[in-house]
């Protein structure tokens, strides 16, 4: 039983990362029907930005910044810089294609290529050595019986929840948030609301990439081994999470992220972990079989 609770805590922490990345996938998908395969790599870029920013801040001359101060400055800097990366990709790679009226899958492939450029560009520029984020938050381990939790894990889970609530408010309460939802219904009606389409799209990328940057920062704090390919696999898994949750729906991305983490961790925990992928993906396949449009997805009704 204790083991089960411990595994739940593990799953909550790991699911937080999936959820944070999946939110970015789902936001962009909701607006553009674009699977932004570069998103996992934007997450990686976020982690690297956090590394550079915090290293730079810690190296300031005496008296220097305290750890807490550094963290407080690194968070906004990372979020802003990462969202700029996301918006840049949109501007130079996706938008021209969209303007030319390309099939949406061509934009998807372009996104895939952008991801490769980010990964390998990083590798070529920074070398293959892995980076470790300096410690920004002193780690405490709290134990309750046989259950061990660190303050880091609690922070991660808390942040993920906070981001979800924030996003939910943005999408349901603000004008631009409502415009985002409107785009996914009808792209042509949007100008009627008095908001230019491009602005909504840029805003979406800012939000999505900013959250990925935040995720990257938290990830770097929790798993301080950064390498250029770290975002690729996590990105694919988060995409899977977003789809299983029902892509295009914020609740779906959130639920999907945690669901995927629970499935992966519980399978590894209570079945032979050598078969983890086999069982975990079979379960996901079954879920999609039973609910073909994901947990929160609305079945597409065709009217003839």
């Amino acid at each position, binding site marked *: 039983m204790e083991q089960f609770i411990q595994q739940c805590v593990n799953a909550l922490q790991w699911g937080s990362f999936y959820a944070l990345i999946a939110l970015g996938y789902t936001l962009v998908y909701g607006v553009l029907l674009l699977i932004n395969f570069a998103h996992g790599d934007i997450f990686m870029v976020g982690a690297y930005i956090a590394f550079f920013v915090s290293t730079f801040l810690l190296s300031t001359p005496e008296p220097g910044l305290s750890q807490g101060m550094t963290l407080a400055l690194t968070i906004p800097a990372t979020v802003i810089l990462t969202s700029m990366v996301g918006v840049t990709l949109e501007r130079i790679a996706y938008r021209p294609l969209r303007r030319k009226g390309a099939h949406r*899958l061509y934009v998807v*492939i372009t996104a895939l290529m952008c991801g490769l450029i980010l990964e390998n*560009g990083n590798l070529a520029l920074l070398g293959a050595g892995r980076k470790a984020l300096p410690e920004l938050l002193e780690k405490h381990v709290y134990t309750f019986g046989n259950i061990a939790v660190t303050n880091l894990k609690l922070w991660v889970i808390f942040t993920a929840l906070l981001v979800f609530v924030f996003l939910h408010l943005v999408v349901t309460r603000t004008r631009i948030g409502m415009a985002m939802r409107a785009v996914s219904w009808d792209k042509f009606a949007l100008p009627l609301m008095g908001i230019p389409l491009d602005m909504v799209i840029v805003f979406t990328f800012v939000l999505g990439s900013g959250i990925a940057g935040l995720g990257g920062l938290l990830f770097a704090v929790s798993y301080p081994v950064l390498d250029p390919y770290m975002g690729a696999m996590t990105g694919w898994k988060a995409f899977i999470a977003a789809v299983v949750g029902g*892509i295009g729906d914020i609740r779906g991305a959130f639920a999907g992220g945690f669901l995927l983490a629970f499935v992966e961790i519980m399978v590894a925990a209570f079945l032979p972990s050598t078969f983890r992928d*086999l069982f975990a993906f*079979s379960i*996901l396949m079954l879920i999609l*079989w039973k609910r073909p449009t994901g947990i929160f*997805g609305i079945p597409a009704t065709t009217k003839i």
Partner: protein
Amino acid sequence: MQRHTLNILMLIGAVGLVTAAYAGLLDNYTLTVLMFMGINIIFASGLNLVNGYMGEFSCGHAGFMCVGAYTGSLLSAALFAGGKLFGAPLLPPELAPLFFPLILLVSGLCAAVFGLIVALPSFHTRGDYLAIITIAANYIIISIIENIDAIGGPRGFFGMKKTINAMYDVADLPWMLIWVIISVVVCLTLLYRLVTSTGGKGIAAVCQNEIAAEIMGVDTNRVKITAFMVSSGLAGVAGVLYAHVYGYVNAQAFNILKSTEGLVMVYLGGMGSMSGAVLAAVAFTLLVEGLRFAIPALNDVLHTLNILPADFEISQIWKWVIIPLILILLMQFRPEGFLGNRELTQLFPKLKRWITFR
């Protein structure tokens, strides 16, 4: 006669290639790259059936290639090599050239059966949800193979080398090149015949308007099953060839990255264009291999011109930055791939005079 020009040219080309290889005019590297190109052509044009003609988004197609590669290797090892797992070889080595096509066929069928797994959910779900199911299938296949220690698990499997050697013993011909050429021709012909038949056009009808297709009498479920099975079967054939050209298979060689390579080739060529997929496969292979020569050359040129600082070298690492960059640029110029959804003969009607491709 004129209509056969292209066919005759292709025949001459194929015979010429084989002769050149036989006479030792082509080195092994060129041969392997050519064979790899052939494998890519089969893989890409097969995937094009599902992702192009049928408009689905199958993201995990390398999984079927993996099934084909392993089935083919195991069969080939069991028939002609024997070993710990199989005991004595089941057939005398002289029969290797005769049975290789059978191995290709059986492994293709086996991969096609796995294709069913993906075809069934496609009745319920489509588009990006189906993408996940194919990715899941890819992971599941790899996970299964890695857990079977008898066939090498993560160590991979090899043992088909003996089959190839057996073929050389029968007659000293460039056997694998011959098989690759034959497979490419056969696969492309079958594919062409499928998509031009009234039954096969149902695939495109499902893509363009599934409801209309169903109500106009097209058995959409059957069409989907057919398309998925043919497509995964072709991937399986590509897998067998891969296994025998390289003499080694490993489950991780068919992971999601391989699948995305297939996607790149399909969309680069143009969705639903066979000639496009072939062109894209050729271009992609040339790009990957050509840059091995182009990058050092570029490095030398830039250094001679003193554009780059002396201690900075453009190494092969930049290759995987340059390739996606080129592909992105190509997409910007041709936002629907090389050929869109048309064939070469539609773009250049004059070509029709030279072709009788049936």
